[in-house]
Every structure is written in C-alpha cells, then in structure tokens.
C-alpha cells in the first residue's frame, strides 16, 4: 500500500487532507451539545465550541486549497 501511495502526485496530499478535515467537520456536529457544556448552568452561544471547531476547520481548508 505504501508503494502505491508513493506513486501518487503530491497534490493528492492536499485532496486527502481536505477530505479528512471535511469528515472531521461532520463528526464535530454529531457530538451532542450537552456533552460539551455539561458543567455550565446556562451556556451562551459562544461557548458552543463546536462552532470554534468549524471555524478552525474552515481555516485549514483555506490553507490546503491555497498551498
């Protein structure tokens, strides 16, 4: 498998990375909000760190598209 991977051009690295980040982005939203804010009495919208993760993933997608 490693030999087969080594025959692919470097751009495939960008595509695979973007695919990984998109999958991660989908996984993040499968996690229920209660599991994240379990010990907060009345969590504010900004404390939903799934949004933080989404912005972070969007930033990574920009990087792997640009470079």
């Amino acid at each position, binding site marked *: 498998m490693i030999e087969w991977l080594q025959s692919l051009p470097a751009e495939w690295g960008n595509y695979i990375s973007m695919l990984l*980040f998109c999958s991660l982005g989908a996984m993040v939203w499968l996690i229920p909000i209660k599991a994240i804010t379990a010990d907060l009495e009345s969590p504010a919208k900004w404390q939903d760190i799934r949004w933080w993760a989404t912005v972070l993933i969007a930033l990574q997608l920009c990087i792997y598209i640009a*470079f």
Partner: protein
Amino acid sequence: MHPLDLVVIASYVVLIVVVGLRVARNVKDARDFFLAGRSLTWWVIGLSIIGSNIDTNSYVGASGNAYTIGIAQANFEWIGAIPAMILASLIFIPLYWRAGVYSIPEYLGLRYNQSVRVVTALITSLFAVFAMGVGMWALALVLETYLGWPIWMSILISGAIVGLYSITGGLAAVAFTDALQVSIMFICGLIIVGLGISELGGFTNFAAELTRDNPNHLSVYLPADHPQSPWPGVILGLGIVLSPAYWIASQAILQRTLGAKSQWDASASMMFAAFAKTFVPLLIIFPGLLALVLNAPIDQGDKALPWVIKNVLPPGLSGLMFVAVIAALQSSLDSSINATSLMVTRDIRHVLFKQHDPARDLAVGRGISLVLLLSAMAIAPFISDLGGIFIFLQTGLSLFQGPMLALLLMGALSQRATPQAGLWTLISGVGLAAALQFTTLNFYYVAFLSFCYSMSALWLLSHVTPGLTEDELTRLTYRPFTRRSSS
C-alpha cells in the same frame, strides 16, 4: 549585543521570576502543585499549551527546515496538529476530566491495569529526561552564540531560573509564565513578519522571490519520494499516529487542561490553543523563508533564525526576539519538569511503593522536580557527543506512540478493550516498533505500522480476556449518547 537588548533580556528574567514566585505563594498541597488547585481559565491554559509545545529545537530547527524544504514544514502545525487537537478537545479531555485523574498513565491504569500505568509512566518519564537534556543543550548553544557564555554557565543559569519558579510554584506558576512567554513569542513573530514583508515590498513580491529559485517552497506537500518529508508518510505517520498520540497522550500538554476550573474550560483551552497553533508557522517557519529570500549568507538552515534576528530586527527588538527563543525553551522545560515529577510521584511511587504517604506528595514532588532538573543539566553537556540526537528523539517517539495511541483510542471509544489485552499489546507493540527500526522504513511508516498492529492485537486479544464491569466502563469510556445518572 546592544545595551538596549541587554536591558530587555534582564527585564524579562526579572518579570518571569517575580510572576512565578508570586503564584508560588498559593501552593499549599499536591493538588495545588500538580493541578494548580483546579483553578485555571481556558485562555491561560490555551497559551500555556502552545508554550509547552514550542521549544527551542522547534524554533531553531523548524526555521532551518523551512529554509530547506519550505512551508511543507508547517504540516507539523496544520494536518499534524489541528485534527488531533480538535479530537482531544471534544472527546478525550472531557473523558479525562470526568475520570478525575491527575495524569494520562493514571487514566490508563484505571481503564486497563496498574502494570499499564507504570509501564507508560516509566517510558514517558525516561524519554522526557532525555528530551529535557536536549532542550537545555539547545538553549546553552543559543546563549553561547549570542552572549558568549560557556556551555556550562548557560546550563547552570537557565536551569536555576527555571527551577526557581517551577519547583516552588508548580503548575500554576508554569501556566502563567508560559502564557506570558507565548505572548512575547507572538509579538516578536508578528514584528518579524511585518518587517520582512515590508522590506520586500509586499507579500506578492515575497512569494515571487521565494518561488523563483525554489518552486516547491510554497507547496504544503512534497513528492512521495522526498527523503525528508514524503507526503504519504506525513499524512499516515504524522497526521494519523504521531500527532494524535502527542496531543491525546502527552502528559506535559494535557496536565494543564486537568488543572482547569471546569470541564468546559479544559475543552475550550485546547480549541483556543488550536487557533493559536494555526498561526505558529508565522513564528517558526517564516524566518527560515525570509532568510532564503534575503539571500542570507549561511551554510546551514539552522542558522536562518539567528541570522534574521541579527540582521532584520533593530536593537531592542532583537533582544526581545532573543528573549522569545529563551522563553520557548523555558516554557517547554518547566512543563516537562512538572509533568514528569507528577508521573514519578504518583504513577510510579504510588503503585510500586505501597507504604507511600499521599500527604507527602507535595514535598516528594518538589524533590523529584529538583532531581529531574539536575539530571537534565547533567545530561545536557554530553548531548552533542551522541550525534544525530534529533533523529534519536524522533525514533524514540515512534517506538511507543503507536501502541499508546491504540490503547487510548480503543480504551476511550470502545468497551471491548480489556486490561490483559492492553498490557500485552503495549509490550508487543513497542517490541514490533523496535524491530522495524532495523528496516529501511522512514520513522513515519514505523509509527503507522506499529499503530495498525496494536489496534489489531488489542481487538483480537480482548476477545479472549476478561474486561471491566459496566459501572467502571461508564466512567472511563466516551459515550455521549448514553444517559448517565452520575453526570
């Protein structure tokens, strides 16, 4: 060195010692010393995580590698860190937090057995002492270059400063000084970027100059046959094994999240650190590229950062940048000392010495911190004699990170993994990784193969060995969709 630079350096040393000692007054027991009394807020922890993560080796070495291979070096920060940090933030940190543990080996001890706890604590502690020695040596070289101090004097002075606040103040002192140190690093890094880009007439000119003679230097992935950074190896070894193992299992990194004042603060701190991590290449990659574009007269990449500090920054700012490099080492060293001291005090001493007195943990922890610091200082002068020490460290990591990641992933996400299967997988997985070192495989591939083996072995062995009870598994496995009566 300009007198203004000396004033900046002296002010930094005084500031760090004062902040560290001030925080140290709040340390009353082992919980204060090792977990900052569970009082830290998310942004302090987030900055501290980055401080612990960036050391002098990565500062000088990453700039050097960027000079040679371009922004492909930044994969250590992007595909190599961000996914793992997101997973740590959303899944593993809440799990460790709910388990109420002080350390990752302690979690493994609860999830598997005490033998797994001691073996993982021993391996990571031994490795940490070597890594601390390398860090002290790297700092001594920087001090020798800039200030002309002999190696032994540099080691003695930097060790005394780090020891003063980390041994007295514990995790809280480490976290607050780290946050200060990272702020200095970012200010200096952004100033270098601003001055460098403006000197070259804007980013477009900079990019054109860079890629004219080095067409791959703005490509994040290099060809698969590249000897140093083959793209499949980067994704499989770094992205899937080495980096998750580091961000999910590193005691030095995760200890401050266990010192958070709430589970949310712990999770948010890692996500905040991931944002900062995205921009870390500006600090540690850009100077290498800048040196290349400015045609720096250097014969090796590792001299790129020192050249930029001396030739791009004006007096005062070059002193501040020098401080940033010292801060990078200090923030990693103090974290390592505190984390290793915790593992020796609790994960090794508590298990192996049944007659231990938990009330003495604070005194023992401080004593062990001192011994660890002295050991690192004793090893440091001999590091250069070993040769290829950075390769040695990377190879050492690839030996045990695959099996450890398998144990944590299966242990946290599946109820199937059993204590006996965990122990035998850990031992045989490290053995397999050691055997693979004798092949021609790059260490990225060694890490990936040992991880695949460990996942399979753990799965299969768990079918034929007894597991934990349902009650124990409820607290120790990640099941966000299950109703919990206790949480």
